[in-house]
């Protein structure tokens, strides 16, 4: 299997990472060498194996939904790259 430039452009869209042609070519090379190495897994037959999703053999615990931190609104908004008093600001979405 080989990952072509069209696939790279598709993944970059899904990843929300802009990629120009030069970068796409480099990424295609890198990903192809990485996937060549990953394809080793195809040597194994795994039809009857249960997938391991987590090594922590615990069930998710429930907790009550309580507010525990107070008065951090200002600090949180301060971390945003562009703020407007109490709001996060993004480029206009609706024309």
């Amino acid at each position, binding site marked *: 299997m080989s990952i072509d430039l069209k696939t790279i452009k598709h993944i970059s869209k899904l990843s929300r990472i802009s990629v120009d042609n030069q970068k796409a070519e480099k990424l295609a090379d890198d990903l192809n*060498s990485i996937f060549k190495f990953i394809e*080793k897994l195809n040597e194994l037959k795994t039809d009857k194996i249960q*997938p391991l999703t987590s090594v*922590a053999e615990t069930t998710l615990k429930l907790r009550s939904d309580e507010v525990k931190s107070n008065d951090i609104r200002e600090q949180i908004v301060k971390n945003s790259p562009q703020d407007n008093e109490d709001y*996060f600001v993004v480029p*206009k979405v609706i024309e």
Partner: protein
Amino acid sequence: MSEITKQSLSELVKNIKNKKISSEEITKAFVNRSKKSKGLNTYITEDYSSALDKAKKFDQNPNLDLKLPGIPIAVKDLFCTKDIRTTAGSKILNNFVPTYESTVTQNIWNEGAILLGKLNCDEFAMGSSNETSFFGNVQNPIDKNLVPGGSSGGSASAIAGQLTPITIGTDTGGSIRQPASFTGTVGLKPTYGSCSRYGIVAFASSLDQAGPMAQNVKDCALLQEVISSYDSKDSTSINFKRNEYSKELTNNIKGKKIGIPKEYRVDGMPKEIEDLWQKGINYIKDCGAEVIDISLPHTSYALPTYYIVAPAEASSNLARYDGVKYGFRAKGENLIDMYEKTRSEGFGAEVQRRIMIGTYVLSSGYYDAYYLKAQKVRKLIKNDFDEAYKKVDAILTPSTPSAAFKIGEKKDDPVSMYLNDIFTVPVNLAGLPGISIPAGHDSKGYPLGLQIIGKAFDEQNILNIAYAMEEKIDFKNKITDWWIK
């Protein structure tokens, strides 16, 4: 009394408890040495003046019952520290100031320790050489041409260079053990679920674990005792009876069964590593433990599995960096354009590569072939260890397939960089504890490490084995202070 920064944690704690030395004196010594060590590029954020204030305050009313009384500590910049910038080595978090403290660092401060600063690391802990950091590569105190390993390269360099008496790192595929091995220091990756992940910048959530790094096994045991705790804020934190690892530490490992996995004798393994491993086996026998040959048949599939599972989880975890609520934002013509440019300019090449791999293996049409397949092989790898542990108490392997490599040597070849983690990655996939201890030098005088892998929650046992071996090995790190002008 020997020079302050040369003392181990245990010595410093003893001296402070006996009032032979103050927290201020210790803190000053480490601050001064850190200031003179800018050439190593270990720190991303320094917090020296605040550290000195805290030390003075500690001395006014010292609580000497604490485990880390007035001890200054620098930590990997992957741990969120309240009101102190936390970057994860990335441009995208360059100006991020957390409003909360990670549980692991909080546990450290609760025992009286004082923050010195935040240590450099590979961007989002993705790397094996500390060359992917936005803040530049870190130098290895052993030799100026060498990488310190990664991703906890700043932490390892800070320990080896004596800029902090102990530190913490995180280990997703070897990021504590490999840099420990490259710098002649000790690093423990605890069992998954032992140390809380709360407040650690996430890379691959089913693999990430925080752990201690130190000059010796005893210090490592003490720090593990402090940082390991059950935490309801981490949904995979596990409530088990935690030992007082440093108090229960013993070098009596008579009768323990240690497994030697034949699959770790990989093709092209340098003779020096073979010899080191054999030396380790002899030490184990000298300590009265029994050596047993074992097989972990799926070892060679661990790295390919890891390079599906870890990027998949990373691509999901890193989706949050969108330039809206925090971090770097690039200008864009519209919302989508802003997202795409922010992530393209804010993430470095390795992080983008891994996000792309992860997105691909999770994407429609490829999920079963890659991600599901990898999860199944992960099960086989865990089964291998479960089988082995019916026969043995712990497993001994080399920590890395070579000594530290040169800066720039593997930078442009991702696969050869990934191969560095060949002996450490299986441990993360199976969620087990593993410790790397310095065990010798190669022909150039660079340190080499051995890894002891334990059963889940059996940190005490591998610490004991490491402790017994450490005594026999009597390793001396060769630090010349070349970076201090």
